[in-house]
């Protein structure tokens, strides 16, 4: 079964796999998480706002994106972003957008829909009396959010936010459909070039597993700690 298993092909391609592939994957994961959390928080605030149109827009946005497969959304934005770029800059032709930028915008906008649901739950987990107390002290809406509600909402939702980040980390492998060299893309390119599909895909699976498993253990420990603190 493993008689013809070629460890050497993995060894030889390690620099490419990690410095090209994994760097792309990790950069995309971290930046899209940061962007997704910020945008998601804004969406959650809109969703909970007493101004109805704002709340409707946010609900429509997150419900629509959450009902579509990520693969379809990746294709959507891949073709749409050049036109949006043209519209924003007023250029005469659709803007040329690099693979990384396109993937980053897509994942930020897509994951914001999921992060917004998490943040909404987090904001709602803070008793309303705290906001009333803030207003009674003369805080404005933004001060209330900045100093009273959001810090607690983040802390309560940290394990869930991190779990979503692990899902995002796994989801980034889907940029494969645009032939981008992320970690899986790099593994797949070597696999096809050298005819070593078994070795490369097994190796990719092991690495994804190791990272996701380690992170999910970490989240579990964090969860246990915050559970006691409350």
């Amino acid at each position, binding site marked *: 079964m493993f008689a013809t298993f070629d460890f050497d092909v993995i060894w030889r391609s390690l620099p490419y796999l990690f410095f090209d592939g994994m760097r792309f994957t990790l950069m995309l994961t971290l930046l899209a998480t940061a962007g997704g959390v910020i945008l998601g928080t804004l969406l959650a605030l809109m969703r909970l706002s007493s101004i109805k149109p704002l709340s409707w827009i946010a609900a429509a946005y997150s419900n629509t994106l959450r009902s579509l497969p990520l693969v379809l959304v990746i294709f959507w934005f891949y073709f749409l972003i050049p036109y949006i770029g043209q519209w924003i800059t007023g250029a*005469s032709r659709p803007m040329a957008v690099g693979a990384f930028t396109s993937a980053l915008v897509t994942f930020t906008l897509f994951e914001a829909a999921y992060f917004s649901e998490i943040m909404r739950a987090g904001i709602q987990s803070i008793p309303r009396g705290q906001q009333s107390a803030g207003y009674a002290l003369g805080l404005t809406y933004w001060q209330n959010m900045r100093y009273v509600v959001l810090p607690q909402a983040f802390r309560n939702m940290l394990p869930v936010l991190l779990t979503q980040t692990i899902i995002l980390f796994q989801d980034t492998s*889907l940029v494969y459909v645009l032939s981008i060299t992320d970690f899986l893309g790099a593994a797949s390119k070597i696999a096809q070039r050298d005819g070593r*599909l*078994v070795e490369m895909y097994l190796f*990719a699976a092991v690495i*994804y597993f190791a990272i996701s*498993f380690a992170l999910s253990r970490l989240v579990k420990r964090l969860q246990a700690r915050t559970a006691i603190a409350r």
Partner: protein
Amino acid sequence: MSYNWNWGIFWEASPEGTGNYFDMLLSGARWTIVTALIAWIIALTFGALIGVARTLPSKWANGFATAYVEFFRNIPILVQLFLWYFVLPELLPRAAGMWMKQLPNAAFWTTAFGVGLYMSARVAEQVRAGINALPRGQGMAGKALGLTTAQTYRYVLLPMAFRIILPPLTSEFLNTIKNTSVGLTIGLLELTGRARSMQEFTFQVFEAFTAATLLYLLINAVVVVGMRFLEMRVAIPGHSVGK
């Protein structure tokens, strides 16, 4: 925007020679639904078994079920599909590997099983949560009445647990439908794949994707309404659960 809209494109003949582009997308939607249904049956079956195993008072069953869930949860779905499609046939004995490769509709079966197993880990977590949400006294009462462990699960714990987890199961079913789109990477012509090939044939990107989006939203709506109906049907009067 310098884009030439052409909504009439759906009624033009597709290069497959068996109807227009709209038919092509519909056939994609059919593949999405069939694949998702088979995947869901697999996910429910294995998910229920593994979820129960995680709550059994047996170290072995527990360990196996935990390993199962961690394996399927921590590897991206796309990598799992590649493992089943490209790697497994090579690792099996020659004859079995050949049989797998020559299977008619190999992409379809791989996607259905791959997504089914991937989702089964998530269903298992829900089932476990549902069983753990029940008061411990229920299992003990079953035992006190002389039921075997299997009977306790069959008649006491699972009927309630499944009612509790119906809402999260609805979203897991929706995830199953969405995940079948990953099958396009191994050549399954489901809805997203069809929209993509329509875009390649006609260059009408946004019409094709808009149609696919609307079809997905429609499928979602049908599932949500159907599950609401099921929730009402199986609700136990006087019980807050399952309403």
